[in-house]
């Protein structure tokens, strides 16, 4: 509702003429365009669109017009106000963008400053390599089995078909836990975990057992008295050496990539019969260094093949020692050195690097190998 007519003043009403309104708009637009920053824009807004601005005052006077002129003037002033508002908005967008750009330009930093304030640590590559190898088997349905490092001699030797005076016991020099007759040794291999798995688990059994083992070797570039192995064991009906070979081929491919060539070579282990060594064709020289002194290969020692581990069909005597029906079940088993695998997979040349705990070694591998 418009205001009372009592204050009607013809002089003021003249401000509502078309020319006057256009003039107001032109002044307002010019002032807005001239605003160099948001503060100036704010002042321009107050002056040309605020309560005391000419247009606001003009608007107020519309009510005083005779009814016939009201609509016309109202339309005119309304358009003027819209024009000014639009100019303000447009200018504001531009000025905000300018201001933001300026602020961010001022806030720019040297992004090449070192950003290693909390460097990533590392897990030992032997740990992560064991995990990775285990992962391959978990994906095939195997479980991870474990056993103690100080182990019953019975599980480490006797049950694995290594009787007390067997020369195989001297193949691996054993740490005995005092006294020598205690029947407790530091396990010389992860194979006693096979015995535990077969005593503890339901058939069929598919397990893989990574772990730490001990032999009385002095530490040097290629030997360490404390090292790691991963053992695999499958006991089921109808298992064959071909299954063993296929399993090792799969592991080799996962660890060394497509195209790796494996070889099973007859060998001897008391706990497997038939037994084999698993060799990998040297993936550096692919055998080209053999008999060619001009192309020596450090990875395989110019042998063309790298010994990776031992394997075979579980000796029925071992199955017998844990009470598994040898008429019905057969098994295969394999084991390989983690250190060796790391040495030729990742090019570690000195065994001591793996055991000394120098953080520079581990950090180079990050959190996974």
């Amino acid at each position, binding site marked *: 509702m418009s205001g009372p007519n009592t204050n009607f003043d013809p002089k003021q009403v003249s401000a509502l003429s078309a020319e006057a309104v256009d003039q107001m708009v032109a002044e307002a637009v010019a002032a807005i365009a001239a605003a160099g920053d948001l503060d100036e824009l704010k002042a321009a807004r107050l002056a040309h669109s605020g309560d005391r601005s000419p247009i606001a005052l003009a608007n107020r006077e519309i009510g005083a017009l005779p009814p016939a002129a009201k609509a016309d003037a109202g339309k005119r002033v309304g358009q003027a106000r819209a024009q000014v508002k639009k100019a303000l908005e447009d200018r504001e967008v531009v000025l905000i963008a300018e201001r933001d750009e300026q602020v961010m330009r001022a806030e720019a930093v040297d992004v090449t400053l070192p950003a*290693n304030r909390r460097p990533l640590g590392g897990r*030992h590559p032997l740990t992560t390599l064991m995990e990775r190898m285990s992962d391959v088997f978990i994906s095939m349905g195997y479980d991870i089995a474990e056993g103690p490092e100080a*182990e019953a001699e019975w599980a480490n030797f006797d049950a694995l078909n290594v009787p*007390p005076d067997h020369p195989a016991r001297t193949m691996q020099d054993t740490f005995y836990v005092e006294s020598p007759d205690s*029947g407790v040794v530091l396990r010389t291999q992860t194979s006693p975990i096979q015995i535990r798995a077969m005593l503890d688990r339901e058939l069929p059994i*598919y397990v893989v057992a990574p772990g730490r083992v001990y032999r009385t070797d002095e530490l040097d570039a290629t030997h360490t008295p404390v090292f790691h192995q991963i053992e695999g064991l499958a006991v*089921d009906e109808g298992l064959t050496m071909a299954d063993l070979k*296929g399993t090792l081929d799969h592991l080799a491919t996962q660890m060394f990539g497509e195209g790796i060539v494996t070889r099973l070579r007859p*060998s*001897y282990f008391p706990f497997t019969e038939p037994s084999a060594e698993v060799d990998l064709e040297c993936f550096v020289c692919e055998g080209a260094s053999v008999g060619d002194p001009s192309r020596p290969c450090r990875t395989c020692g110019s042998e063309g093949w790298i010994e990776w581990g031992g394997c075979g069909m579980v000796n029925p005597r071992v199955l017998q020692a844990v009470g598994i029906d040898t008429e019905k079940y057969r098994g295969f088993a394999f084991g390989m050195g983690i250190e060796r695998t790391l040495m030729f997979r990742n090019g570690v040349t000195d065994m001591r690097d793996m055991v000394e705990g120098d953080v520079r070694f581990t950090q180079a591998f990050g959190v996974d190998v």
Partner: protein
Amino acid sequence: MRISLSWIRELVDVPANATGRDVAARLISAGLEVESVENVGEGLSGPIIVGRVHEIEELTDFKKPIRWCQVDIGGDEPSGIICGARNFVEGDLVVVAPPGTTLPGDFTITARKTYDHVSNGMICSERELGLGEDHAGIIVLAEGTAAPGDDAAAVLGVGDEILDIAITPDRGYALSARGIGREVAIAYQIAFDDPVDRPEELPAPAQDRAPNACASDDLASCPLFTLRTITDFDPSAPTPQWMVNRLRDSGMRSVSLAVDITNYVMLELGQPLHAFDLDSLQGTVRVDRAQPGEVLETIDHVERKLGNDDLTIRDDRGPIGLAGTMGGADTEISDTTTNIALEAAFFEASIVARMGRRHRLSSEASRRFERGIDRTLAPVASARATELLIKLGGGRYQGMTAVEAPMDTRVITMAASHPEAVAGMPIDAERVVSTLESVGCAVTSNIDAHGNQLSVEPPAWRPDLTDPADLVEEVVRLVGYENLPSTLPTAPAGHGRTWAQRVRRRVGAVLAARGMTEVLTYPFVSQTEHDALRWNDDDPRRDVPRLANPLSDEQPLLRGSLLPGLIAAAQRNVGRGTTDLSIFELGSIFRGSVSATESVRPGVHARPSDQEWDALQDLLPQQPMHIAALWTGAGEPRGWWGTGRTTQWTDAIEALLVIAESAGIDPDRITVEPGSDPGFHPGRQARVLVDGTRIGHAGEIHPGVLENAGLPARSCAMEADLDAITALGVDARPAPVFSTHPVAKEDIALVVSADVSADRVAASIRQGAGELLEDVTLFDVYEGDQVPDGHKSLAFALRFRAPDRTLEAEELAGVRVAIVEQCASDLGARLR
């Protein structure tokens, strides 16, 4: 076993163009591990010539005695050669490398002036020619071996190839030319003339000296003992060069003809032999256990104290040899021995192995007996050696005495289809039979309703063949492992990692992500390391197993804590210049000693009873999985951002809390309280409990420990029982229930006595606030102005939220009052 290709060729008609490497490849495929193939005289080029030393002039003007020799090498004039060796006399045949010849190691001989003479060549030792290791003197050839000017390379077997084969314990038969020859013949599928089958060429016994009787008083350990008597042997007869070469190529030195023949026949056939000086023997030669307290000096001049576990060869006076291991010094043949008693016997493998271990004595003989030799071989090998003694040393044969127990026959029954089933590839019955026959088995086939059953009698030289599985290996290895197909079995659905395995992996990953580095240290420790950690005498961490045969006498104990290993690793890193360190280890520790009172040994022919298995477990020390960490220097490095931050006791406690939380333990189950480990700073250490159970310890390492260890001051450590954490942890954690209503924040500062722990204040706040309190965070600890002496101000940021509504100011004010009242009544706290 080292053997020359020429020796193999003598036994097997190997294709003429086959090289040592070719033969090696065949043997490797059949399961003999050929470690290397070497050339005799590798690196030698140019002629080497047989020379006769005409004249020796001793030059004495030099620091060492030097000889100026005139050597006839077949030319018109003798060559003058300087030589430093002294093991030859005028008239000896030697080997000369003339100028122009290159010796191994790229050493080319030139005519050069040395010791005031122009030396026209070099008189060589075995090692200088790359033939063997002997460098005690130059090579002196036996008279009649060759003439001056002859090609010495041919005489010495230069250019022959040596296969060095590692023999696995099951293949004792391959510790002989006979055994390797057989494998080569099988590999090439050509006939093998077993040298054992050659007709004996012994003369009739002369019978002018009665042989000593022999006996075995322990037929189980020695079921076969033979003694052949040879008299009138010429001790000065030389060993023919071909035999010297073969011994050398097999890694043995020529000693004297009689000894060389026993060694040669052992290498040839695999039967160890021992030659006694017949005239030193008295009465019956018998085999029996030693009497406790007896002593025998063996030929290596070591006095061996004997016991009832030792099997000895004895005459009327006592022990004269350790059976199958080493002979006695008193009865050894010497360079004047003319009458010889030649022992050839079968000793049981395990008794020889035990003696070898007890006396720390391994000989060529014991290596063969330990692996099991051919039970029928002794008389054959003894005849072969006797023939050689007569032929080469002119001895006279006087006959043989022997004692022998009856021999068991071994027959293994196996289905002909068994190898095929185990291998997973087709191998027909015919192939099975022919393969087993090729390794020397006698096979009979019985076809009945159940199929084709084979009865297999292994040959005497294969004591390792006892089970069907052994026969399967023989068949499959000779069919060829390379022919095995590659298939994958179908395992039943698996279970993935166990909870404990997942916790371990998680904890390792979490710590690494926090910038820590994993180390793996040896678990061997010393008492000194325990002392260095200031542990009390009755500290349970000292109660650890001891090794009977530690690598180092200084570290005979197994670790009862991971801290000694971490300290050593830290010292190594600090020593190498890495002083800002945060390392951790995850591994087993050992607790409790092993009682040696009675050892438990279940049998191996059936599953152990539960009681037996439990008894075995009880033998073992406890081996919980621990996790520990150690920090030195800056935890956050100095950089352009500032000075860095030195690791402090809180980092150690925090790591422990993070580990527990990684195992799914809610923070409100965890209590941290002051600790009392003597290895830590008495005022800066905490023990951490979960539901009241102690899980670990953390804090600043005792300054004294750090000083002794040479580690930076303020270094911190943590150790926890990961098995305990795993047991307390929660695998499948329940989802939280939380309100979406607005949070209300309040800060509150309370003044309490300085000895009141922050933890207790927080607990009182929680109690006073009730269920509306969502979180309490201590953000300031202040002592000083405006706080009375002996007091401190703790400022907490509190967050409140209701499950069902927006909290009103009046309600919050009431809670605040309740908090202050609770703290006042519990702890005497007042609002600051």
